[in-house]
């Protein structure tokens, strides 16, 4: 197994400038209506998912009981051919859509991150593949501990 430890901070000139340009171009595409949506149904509408099919080809790793709702580790792997985007929604968050990941050519259909969940809710992962939408849903319990600070 090879591992790198070296990292280089890019400056505004050089590599940084190359990468910031695409960021500026994408700024207008942040899906405001989808991120503002207060229900899963509305969020799905705004990401263009008119119909969503349950799928057993989305592998979701999430806790059964989140130790702390502020930092819930989630891992998604899609086995659906032509996976384009992974969406993560937490049903009872004030705005359910937490994040979306476009998986462009050269990436594997895999994402892991950590999200905030306001309370016990369905965690819903939606995969866009071949311009169709698929989903897997799992309840994640979020509690306030007896000795919690």
């Amino acid at each position, binding site marked *: 197994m090879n591992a790198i430890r070296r990292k280089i901070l890019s400056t505004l000139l050089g*590599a*940084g400038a190359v*990468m910031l340009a695409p960021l500026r171009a994408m700024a207008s595409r942040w899906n405001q209506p989808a991120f503002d949506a207060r229900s899963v149904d509305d969020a799905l509408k705004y990401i263009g998912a008119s119909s969503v099919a349950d799928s057993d080809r989305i592998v979701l790793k999430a806790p059964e009981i989140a130790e702390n709702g502020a930092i819930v580790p989630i891992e998604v792997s899609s086995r659906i051919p032509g996976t384009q985007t992974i969406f993560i929604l937490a049903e009872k968050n004030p705005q359910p859509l937490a*994040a979306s990941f476009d998986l462009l050519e*050269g990436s594997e259909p895999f994402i892991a991150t*950590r999200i905030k969940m306001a309370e016990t809710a369905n965690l819903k992962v939606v995969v866009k593949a071949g311009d169709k939408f698929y989903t897997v849903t799992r309840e994640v319990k979020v509690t306030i501990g007896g000795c919690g600070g």
Partner: protein
Amino acid sequence: MADPMRIRITLQGEVADVKVLIFHPMETGLRKDPVSGEIVPLHFIKHVIATHNGKAVIDAQWSQAVSRNPFLNFRVRGAKAGDKIGISWQDNLGESASIESTVG
């Protein structure tokens, strides 16, 4: 802040597993500052782009629901030693940062 993010890359065959830790408060705009009692304003990363040899491979849109000091793990195909992996982010206040690393 000395480094805006940390990156770790492990190469398994032709797949580079990339783990990134970004230092960012990811404020929801709902939290009260414990000292002042004032609401801490919304401040979160909206866009993250990951590149492989300059070409975008992941294009992510985030909300304030991504955890503080966010973690991201993704995998790049067709990678080999010497390749460059780049991560850039931009937040709702227009702040941004980039890092570039070499597959070992």
